[in-house]
C-alpha cells in the first residue's frame, strides 16, 4: 500500500501542462575578446519552468555548425548527474577557435514517455557568437525538423521580439504550434520565480502559413521554443508501433537593459 499510494497519486495528477524540452544551454551566448574562449554546454531533457530534469541517454548526435561546416562533437560529451534529481545530463567543453556564429545542435535517442504512449525526439539548437563576427546564425543545420531564427538569436534585450521559422524536412511548416518556456532560475540574479499555474507554465503560439512565429520574452534568462510534429516513422515497442513526437527546439538568452 505504501508503495502503491504514490503511484496512484501520480496517475491521478491531472495531465500536467509541463512540456518536455530538449535543451542545449551554453555558459555564454556571446564571447568577446576578453572572455574565456572555452564554453561549457549542458545538453539535457527538461521541464524548464518547473525545474525538472529527465534522464537522458547519450545523444545520437551532437555537433556544431560554423562557417558553413558541420563538426561532430559526440566525443566531447561527458555524462553528469544533476545533484538534486540524480538524472543524467551531458556536458561538453568546446573551445571557440575562430570568430563567427556557432550553432550547436543535438539529436537525442528516442525517449519513451509512457504517460503519452509515444517516443519523443527533440532536435535542440542554440547559437553562440564569437568575437563579434555575426555570420551564420540564419543557416539551417539540416535536421529532420528545426527552428531557423529570423531574429539574430543572441545579444537580445528582455522584451525583444524573437522570430523564427519552423522547418520540417527542410520545408516551412504551416501553422506549426510552438510551446515556449522560461528556464526558471536562469535570470542574472539566479532567483527562480514561483512556478505558475496551468497555462502560464508554457506559452503557446501558432506560426503563420509560412511557419513563421514571433514571441517577446518578458524576463531575463534563457527561453526555449519548441515546435512539435508527429514523425512519419514509428518505433516498434513490445510488438506495437508507437508514434514519435519530433520537436524543433531553439534556445535564446535575454538580458535586462541596465
Amino acid at each position, binding site marked *: 500500500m505504501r508503495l502503491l499510494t504514490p503511484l496512484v497519486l501520480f496517475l491521478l495528477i491531472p495531465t500536467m501542462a509541463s512540456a518536455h524540452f530538449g535543451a542545449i544551454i551554453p555558459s555564454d551566448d556571446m564571447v568577446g*575578446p*576578453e572572455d574565456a574562449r572555452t564554453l561549457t554546454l549542458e545538453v539535457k531533457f527538461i521541464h524548464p519552468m518547473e525545474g525538472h530534469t529527465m534522464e537522458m541517454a547519450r545523444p545520437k548526435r551532437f555537433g556544431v555548425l560554423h562557417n558553413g561546416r558541420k563538426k561532430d562533437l559526440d566525443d566531447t560529451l561527458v555524462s553528469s548527474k544533476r545533484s538534486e534529481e540524480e538524472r543524467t545530463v551531458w556536458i561538453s567543453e568546446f573551445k571557440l577557435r575562430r*570568430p563567427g556564429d556557432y550553432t550547436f545542435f543535438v539529436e537525442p535517442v528516442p525517449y519513451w514517455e509512457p504517460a503519452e504512449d509515444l517516443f519523443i525526439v527533440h532536435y535542440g539548437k542554440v547559437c553562440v557568437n564569437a568575437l*563579434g*563576427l555575426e*555570420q551564420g546564425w540564419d543557416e539551417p543545420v539540416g535536421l529532420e525538423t528545426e527552428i531557423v531564427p529570423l531574429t539574430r538569436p543572441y545579444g537580445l534585450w528582455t522584451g525583444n521580439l524573437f522570430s523564427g521559422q519552423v522547418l520540417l524536412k527542410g520545408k516551412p511548416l504551416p501553422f506549426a504550434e510552438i510551446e515556449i518556456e522560461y528556464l526558471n532560475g536562469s535570470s542574472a540574479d539566479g532567483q527562480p520565480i514561483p512556478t505558475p499555474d496551468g497555462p502560464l507554465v508554457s506559452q503557446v503560439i501558432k506560426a503563420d502559413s509560412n511557419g513563421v512565429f514571433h514571441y517577446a520574452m518578458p524576463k531575463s534568462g534563457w527561453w526555449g521554443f519548441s515546435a512539435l510534429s508527429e514523425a512519419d516513422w514509428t518505433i516498434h515497442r513490445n510488438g506495437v508501433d508507437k508514434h514519435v513526437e519530433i520537436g524543433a527546439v531553439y534556445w535564446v538568452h535575454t538580458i535586462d537593459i541596465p
Partner: protein
Amino acid sequence: MITYRITVPGILLLLLLLPGLAVGHKVNLFAYAEAGRIYVEGYFPDGRSVSNGKVKVFDSADQLLLEGKTDPDGLFNFPIPKTKDLSIVLDAGMGHKTTFTLKKSEIKPER
C-alpha cells in the same frame, strides 16, 4: 594667392569618396598564432573586412613592438615578436578602434 572655398557639395563629395566607412558598425579584431607567426584579422560584424587599418602591437608593459596595416582582406601577419601576452590594437579611423589580447598561452600552447 589661391584660396580654397569649402562648399557643401564639396564636403558631400568628400564624404562619398571616403572608403566604405561603416558608421555604426563595430570594428572587430581576431588574432592567432600559427607556425611562428601571428595572424591578425580585422572585420565588421557583417563579415566585411577592415582594410588599411592601422595595427599596433604592444607587450604587457605597453611597449610598442611593431606596427603595420591590414590588406584589402583585412589581414596582417608578422613573426612572433615575444612569447608574452600581446595587446594588438586595430585603428580603422573615425573612432573605430579595438584591442585584442593574445595570451602567452595561445602563442605557445602548452601541450
